[in-house]
């Protein structure tokens, strides 16, 4: 119970917010709105799942927003070049994994601090993309791009199912597979992990590669909701994702946290912006409220621990 305190408190906050909405603005639970909120949150969740792995090993990756933009543009360009969608998805996934592998190489291979490495790649990828695409939308995409050509409702379903599948796979993997335990072990005590025959470098590297691949997946899931690709997409994604992971109770010192908490954290943050529209809040308060929610969520947990 104590061990899952944060998961419960975040879920409770989410529940309170939803309850408030149910009373004040039941329209929030309309099918269309719910679907949009969830499909918009799905890519964030997928990235957050990957980020959880990285944070569990006591690292961080703030370049995900830039990776996301690169992957999205790549998906658009490949689709326009006539690649079939499955090939596009695979290619983007591989591309994302490659970007993650680069970060991982510097972090795990050379032992550089992840926050600095990914700060550098964050800037580099973003600026490279801007230089290359100059902000131009990737337009004139083939019809099979949006919703994978499945039509809107099946497409939305596909996105949700895909995100759910990724989530379930990772929940299962983290809890029930040996590598999942390795991830916790490396974040909990790196040296002890080494002495147990785990190779922490490879585990760390693996989490970055996985995160990269998941960013690729998320980029596709996000891009196929639209008819063209905005190269600025993913701006600020790193903040959203890190905030979701942290609010969800994953310790930045590694080794502690669950994906269920992350799910609650991501959903909570995803609901805030539309909720403010429904609650008719003046938009200028939005950032302040988001910041306050993050601070309150972590402070509540912190004060509980400080009192203990």
């Amino acid at each position: 119970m104590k061990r899952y305190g944060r998961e419960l408190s975040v879920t409770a906050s989410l529940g309170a917010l939803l309850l408030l909405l149910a009373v004040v603005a039941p329209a929030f639970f309309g099918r269309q709105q719910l679907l949009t909120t969830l499909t918009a949150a799905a890519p964030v969740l997928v990235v957050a799942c990957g980020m959880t792995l990285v944070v569990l090993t006591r690292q961080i990756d703030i370049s995900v927003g830039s990776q996301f933009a690169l992957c999205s543009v790549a998906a658009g360009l490949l689709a326009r070049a006539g690649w079939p969608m499955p090939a596009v998805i695979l290619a983007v996934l591989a591309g994302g994994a490659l970007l993650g592998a680069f970060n991982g190489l510097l972090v795990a291979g050379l032992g550089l601090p992840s926050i600095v490495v990914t700060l550098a790649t964050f800037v580099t990828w973003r600026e490279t993309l801007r230089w290359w695409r100059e902000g131009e939308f990737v337009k004139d995409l083939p019809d099979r791009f949006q919703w994978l050509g499945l039509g809107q409702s099946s497409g939305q379903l596909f996105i949700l199912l895909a995100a759910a599948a990724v989530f379930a796979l990772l929940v299962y993997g983290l809890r029930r597979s040996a590598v999942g335990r390795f991830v916790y072990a490396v974040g909990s005590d790196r040296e002890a992990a080494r002495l147990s025959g785990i190779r922490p470098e490879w585990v760390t590297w693996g989490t970055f590669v996985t995160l990269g691949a998941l960013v690729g997946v998320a980029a596709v899931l996000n891009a196929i909701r639209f008819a063209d690709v905005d190269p600025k997409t993913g701006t600020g994604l790193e903040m959203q994702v890190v905030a979701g992971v942290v609010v969800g109770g994953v310790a930045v010192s590694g080794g502690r946290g669950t994906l269920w908490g992350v799910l609650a954290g991501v959903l909570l943050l995803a609901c805030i912006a539309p909720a403010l529209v429904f609650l008719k809040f003046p938009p200028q308060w939005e950032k302040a409220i988001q910041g306050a929610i993050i601070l309150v969520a972590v402070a509540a947990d912190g004060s509980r621990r400080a009192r203990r």
Partner: protein
Amino acid sequence: MNADPHIERSNLGTPLLRLAGVTKSFGAVRALKGVSFDLRAGEVHALLGENGAGKSTLIKVIAGAHGPDGGELEVFGSRLERLDPGTAHRLGIACIYQQPALFPDLTVAENLGIRLEPSTPWRRIDPTARRGWAEALLQRVGARISPEAEVRSLSMPEQQLVEIACALGAGARVLIMDEPTASLTRREVERLFELVRDLRGQGVGIIYISHRLEEIFALADRVTVLRDGESIDTRPVRDSEGRLQLTESELIQCMVGREIAQLYPAPLRPPGAVAVKLNQVGCTESGVRNVSLEIREGEILGMSGLVGAGRTELARVLFGLTPADSGEIQIGGTAVTIRSPRDAMRHGIAYVPEDRRRHGVILEMPVADNLSLAVLRRLFTGGWLRASTERGMATDLIQRLGVKCAGPQALAGSLSGGNQQKVALGRWLATQPKWLILDEPTQGVDVGAKGEIHKLIRELAGSGLAVLLISSDLPEVIGMSDRIAVMRGGTVVSTLPGGSTAAQVMAAALGQSEEAQ
């Protein structure tokens, strides 16, 4: 996992492990200069040597944590070029380090699972089955621990038992134990010994490292002494009739290569006036309650008790790390309030903590900076650092304490354990305290340095300091103390006169009344 410790008896006596001329360097430091060593099935082979002699490096080579630079390494009869932790583990070499290498965030069962289940990463975990065999293993080592407990919540001895359970479960044929008794109470030590003898009986080869020579005599079949990265000698402890073939002083001489001073020097002066008086001191947060004590000037008050009896907790209360919430502390006859280490320091209290590497010194900082850390304000009035002042102070202390280091600018982390401990002590001597609290000052310190530290403590007491000496090393408490306070359950249960026997101290610690004995 499937623990199958029943090695055929025919294996008994054949070497499980053979090292010849093994060398290992870290940068320019040659940690091992040529070590030969062998381990037979069914023996306890003690490894002795001062800190820095290369014991830790040697066992890390055997456990695969360090690759050797040269020499031969033969495991179970086959030569290996190098070993990594995974391979060592598969071959059945288990190592219990001084600091348990467990994962604090995971449960006991998960910890065991990581090491005992097949190392293929992509396999499914069955939590129920895991819990079952984890429970069985824990029972085998006599640990009453829930497999679902988070390791974070376990005490040091409990964590050690988990480590042993792990080694058992792995069906280890070679078990390395690095100072396993350092933080155990006597009763726990006894239980550990039983376990070790049991394993020996099953044909496991055990490499046993300890600074406590009496343990070596009680347990070991053979002893290898290391000095300066070389194996000096390997000898059986007893002859075929079971008579001891070695004496303590022989071993010590072999280890240090010279005669050392008496381990427990005699007191220099009789105690003076009461320096410190505790009256019903308690702290709810750390479980310390109703502690009443008196320490006189120039007196060494030993403090004994089982692990978890509240000795370190009391020290932390007195030093203001977890401030007292009841009772009264008097220093020099006046009541004082201690809410932070700074308060404590203002009143002349100095505390050399138990965990040297985490609390005692800052490993990444130079010796000089470490020595001046507690007296920065006093040393540099106005807050401006002056390098020459600091260097002078550090050089003085280094000389006075006999710290062996490359100079005041050597990083504290590059020093051996004993010398680190001297630096930790030196930092507090610089504050010119009136009251010195020492928490396990010789834990993990080799014999040579131990004698020097004891001599130093005596000298300090001789100069009029009140000393509170917390130690789990019973001979040390008995040999050093003018009186002995015994704690149990967070409070001082009795105060014994100096010269009490080990049995009397243990009885008090265990809560058996003397009449009952």
